[in-house]
């Protein structure tokens, strides 16, 4: 297309070159619009440090997306890259630590793992004749499961020598950015110059024509998916080295970010079209958005809305550009695809660009906190998908308002690397202190260390931070809470019976600690048997489903311990009229819904933490720490068993 555009464009000169490049690449113009909008809206955006941050934050998505580009250009899809990335990182960490394999060999093993997953995808598609969507969906689940099996659900520390991949060169140039650029160049080389790359376009454009032109399409597809697996492995290693730990739950949902990046970059899901440069731009758009919205203190909930709108607008922009560019070229038999981008096309284009800017601007205007003159505190929560953390957030906001402080709350969506990004953004925008509720205590270490380096005090909330300095830890004791829950349930059951345990999301510290505390407490009651122990991911619906299944196999259960109230409520729902009568359910957290159920009798007890109190105390300590006042190294927020008798004191 490029050559034709050159021909049809009559106006020469410097400005028209820029105009042409932008008109020719919708994604690039969207990126430019975004960068300009962000620079105007936030003074912290256009600094070298922040731009490097954006690069680091784009790296993992970009590397995954490069691999996915191969697949999409050949008219396939790969949903497994996020899981494969996590599996490769887990294999590396496990073999280097637990299995004692030399680090170099461990890296090779990790890469081979990625390639093997891609190979299986390709074989299922080529020879098993599975649709790519199905084959890679299966691999998404298999790879995730294997990484949990290998790691037994817990993060594994990453070998130090490999973790340098997450560091900086010369103290300022981040290695992930270098890896991203290198992989991007490799992608461009593969797509543009190699046999397999050129074959991808032919296979994606018309598979049958490619086959009848002598391309061994089946074998090529295996290579294509193996390449995608290889890139996923590299992305997984970069991700884990940033966090200095391999997380079995890492990179969840990243496949969708990667696909979005590829499509924003101008590739067609129908195949035959796509470029490495476009994919890089797509990944940068996503990273600039997340970074900018952090800097602008846009509410965590609105961020997701804005990201969705911008993805739609960016692709729309590209579609409009194409329409404006090619006219109705396919119409008349001889009409050459001469794009004579009319004035109307350009207008529409400008309109769409304006819309992007307006959306970002409006949302940040309505959401941004008060003026910059007051003290700024950043708070990164592990998730806002759970009432406990929402209460923590509300407590913190109430306290901040009272103290006249500008508090920015971000939601890491249970993703350790997103949390690392948020801490990085807080650090570079110069907040006076940071409150972090870690997704994972090990993985949050590097982010906190760089805040330490910038002399910004960090307050850990609810969960601790390993291998980095925190001014204070504000937490309720999960292990003690687990013990209390065991005592309460055992008392109610009279020291004997068979019980079921609903576990939280595998690999989270809350699940591990509460589970450990409960097991510890249960040791005192040898007549209580745990007949089943199944994960329900802290989720009410899953709690309902899992409990429904367990009732089938264990009808004689008399007690249930759920590692949070949400799952307990799901279990109570599954038990129906039995809940509170023949089966006692004990939850954890003391959320409003949980307390209501305790009052109604469907839950026997909940171990109440006081999340709002926790949030308040965290902010109070953050303010003190920012003023260099002394703070206690740990602040314990009381934990209590709530039953029907004392529920009135808590609600």
């Amino acid at each position: 297309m490029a050559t034709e555009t050159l021909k049809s464009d009559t106006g020469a000169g410097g400005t028209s070159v820029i105009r042409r490049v932008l008109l020719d690449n919708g994604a690039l113009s969207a990126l430019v619009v975004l960068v300009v909008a962000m620079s105007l809206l936030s003074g912290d955006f256009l600094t070298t440090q922040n731009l490097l941050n954006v690069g680091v934050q784009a790296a993992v998505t970009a590397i995954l997306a490069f691999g996915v580009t191969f697949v999409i250009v050949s008219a396939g899809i790969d949903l497994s890259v996020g899981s494969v990335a996590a599996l490769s990182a887990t294999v590396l960490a496990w073999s280097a630590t637990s299995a004692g394999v030399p680090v170099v060999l461990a890296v090779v093993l990790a890469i081979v793992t990625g390639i093997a997953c891609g190979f299986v995808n390709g074989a299922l598609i080529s020879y098993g004749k599975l649709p790519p969507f199905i084959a890679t969906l299966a691999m998404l689940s298999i790879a995730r499961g294997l990484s949990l099996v290998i790691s037994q659900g817990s993060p594994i520390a990453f070998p130090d020598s490999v973790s340098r991949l997450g560091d900086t060169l010369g103290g300022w140039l981040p290695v992930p950015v270098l890896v991203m650029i290198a992989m991007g160049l490799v992608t461009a080389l593969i797509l543009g110059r190699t046999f397999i790359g050129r074959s991808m376009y032919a296979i994606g454009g018309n598979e049958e024509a490619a086959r009848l032109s002598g391309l061994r399409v089946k074998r090529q597809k295996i290579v294509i998916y193996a390449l995608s697996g290889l890139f996923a492995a590299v992305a997984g290693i970069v991700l884990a080295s940033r966090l200095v730990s391999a997380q079995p739950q890492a990179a969840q949902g990243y496949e969708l970010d990667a696909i979005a990046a590829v499509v924003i970059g101008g590739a067609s899901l129908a195949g035959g079209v796509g470029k490495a440069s476009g994919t890089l731009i797509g990944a940068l758009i996503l990273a600039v958005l997340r970074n900018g919205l952090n800097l602008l203190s846009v509410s965590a909930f609105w961020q997701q809305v804005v990201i969705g709108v911008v993805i739609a607008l960016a692709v729309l922009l590209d579609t409009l550009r194409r329409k404006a560019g090619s006219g109705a070229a396919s119409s008349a038999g001889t009409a050459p695809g001469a794009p004579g981008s009319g004035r109307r096309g350009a207008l529409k284009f400008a309109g769409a660009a304006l819309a992007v800017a307006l959306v970002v601007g409006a949302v940040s205007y309505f959401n941004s906190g008060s003026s910059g003159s007051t003290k700024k505190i950043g708070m990164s929560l592990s998730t806002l998908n759970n009432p406990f953390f929402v209460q923590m957030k509300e407590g913190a906001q109430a306290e901040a308002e009272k103290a006249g402080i500008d508090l920015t709350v971000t939601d890491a969506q249970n993703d350790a690397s997103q949390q690392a990004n948020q801490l990085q953004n807080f650090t570079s925008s110069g907040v006076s202190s940071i409150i972090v509720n870690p997704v994972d205590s090990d993985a949050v270490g590097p982010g906190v260390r760089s805040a330490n380096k910038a002399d910004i005090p960090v307050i850990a909330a609810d969960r601790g931070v390993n291998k980095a300095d925190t001014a204070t830890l504000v937490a309720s004791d999960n292990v003690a809470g687990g013990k209390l829950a065991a005592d309460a349930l055992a008392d109610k059951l009279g020291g004997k019976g068979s019980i079921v345990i609903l576990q939280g999301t595998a690999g989270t510290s809350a699940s591990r600690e509460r589970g450990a505390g409960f097991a510890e407490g249960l040791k005192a009651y040898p007549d209580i048997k745990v007949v089943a122990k199944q994960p329900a991911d802290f989720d009410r619906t899953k709690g309902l489903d899992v409990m429904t299944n367990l009732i089938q196999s264990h009808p004689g259960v008399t007690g249930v311990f759920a590692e949070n109230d949400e799952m307990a409520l799901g279990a109570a729902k599954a038990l129906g009229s039995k809940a509170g009568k023949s089966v006692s359910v004990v939850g954890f957290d003391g959320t409003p819904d949980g307390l209501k159920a305790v009052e109604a009798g469907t839950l026997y007890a909940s171990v109440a933490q006081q999340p709002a109190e926790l949030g308040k105390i965290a902010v109070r300590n953050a303010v003190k720490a920012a003023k260099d006042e002394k703070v206690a190294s740990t602040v314990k927020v009381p934990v209590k068993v709530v039953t029907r008798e004392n529920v009135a004191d808590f609600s």
Partner: protein
Amino acid sequence: MTAPEEQPTTAPDELLRIEGLRKTFPGVVALDNVDFDLRRGEVHVLLGENGAGKSTLIKMLSGAYRPDHGRILAEGREVRIDGAQDAERLGIATIYQEFNLVPDLTVAENIYLGRQPRRYGLVDHRRMRQDAAELLRRVGVDVRPDAKVRELGIARLQMVEIAKALSLDARVLIMDEPTAVLTSEEVDKLFAIVRQLREDGVGIVFITHHLEEIAALGDRVTVLRDGRSIDQVPASTPEDELVQLMVGRSIEQQYPRERPDTGDALLSVRGLTRDGVFHDISFDVHAGEVVGLAGLVGAGRTEVARAVFGADPYDAGTVDVRGERLARHDVPAAMSAGIGLVPEDRKGQGLVLDASVQENLGLVTLRSATRSGLVDLKGQRTAAARIAKQLGVRMSGIGQHVRTLSGGNQQKVVIGKWLLADTRVLILDEPTRGIDVGAKVEIYQLINELTASGHAVLMISSDLPEVLGMSDRVLVMAQGRIAGELPAEEATQDAVMALAVSTPTPPHAHPAPKNEEEGPRGH
């Protein structure tokens, strides 16, 4: 085919009139100052080379495009056709070359798609089936209303499209090359239906590249050239005059075959069999020779060609190229032995439509142009430019997407990619289908050049005059077997057709192969 009856000279009433129509696309004037009219109960043929503007014209009548200038009058009133709904309201129905049918719905559902008869808000299946059966009976096609469209052959699909048009109560029926993919028997059937419709007072706009059909079916002919309506002549105008009007020059000879001396056998096929599809196929093709493979659609010609090329597997038999045995079902092996296939479905199997001329030309040579993983792009570009020039591909540059080329130029690209690969035996499957007269002759010239330089050509074609005009030998297939072989001098239309409809007896007492009246063509 019967000769046209004496046409009524009076024009009772006019259904449609187009005056001074103009349509431009960026950089191209597709139509300029086009006049056309259609009367009740006539077949008005639109004639023109590919790219002359026929498709653009009918797309404006069906509401796909809007004219820039000019008027469209329906029964004397000026109308605007802004979309398919407008066309439907005016009683204009269009049957495109690519059918608009949903493969997994039934015939009845397709006919009434979007307008299913309803009772209490639910689709009234019984009434829909009954109405559809009535329409199908009127069209004279033996298809159950609840058959899945996927199961039907091309000829029947076309009848379903006609039934659909009738259900819309169409007064104007536009048919875009309806005979391009039909066998001559099916063409006769179609003509009978068209004549019936004409008697019922429907006005029919008929597009065809087969000149002999004009005299057989048409009343008047409007010739388009380079986007202009050149002339309007009666359908009885001699073919050579029509050709001259169409191309603006006279074509000396339609089939300029020059027969060089033949050499050794380049391709030898022995006892090739694929159970239920073709049986015991044996033949040779020599250097310098054009062997025609004739037969009805569904006789197994395309299937044999694909098996020889390695695109499909076979159960028994051998394929040798220059004395070397070819591996079964292995396209790259066939390719490196020097066989090339120009498939019948140019767009679906021959080309990557959204890739450039250069990329398409370089597809076959991609591997040989690769050194240690890297493709020699510069060499590819030079080679592509050279071959495109040699074949006279009309394009704005080798970067142009092949989707925007005309059919003839697309076909040159498909052939060109094999020439670049130094192919010795070229299998051409329907090489000139849907290609205009001028481009056809260019392709015939190309075949001459190939055989003159010692290449061998196996040509499958449903266009009988083409087979007779270009082949040095004609093999006729019927029901999956070779029914006979005719040297060029003995090959006449009658002789070929007699073999094509025969029932060849297997040498051994095999059960007769399945007789699929309208077998699937290729894939």
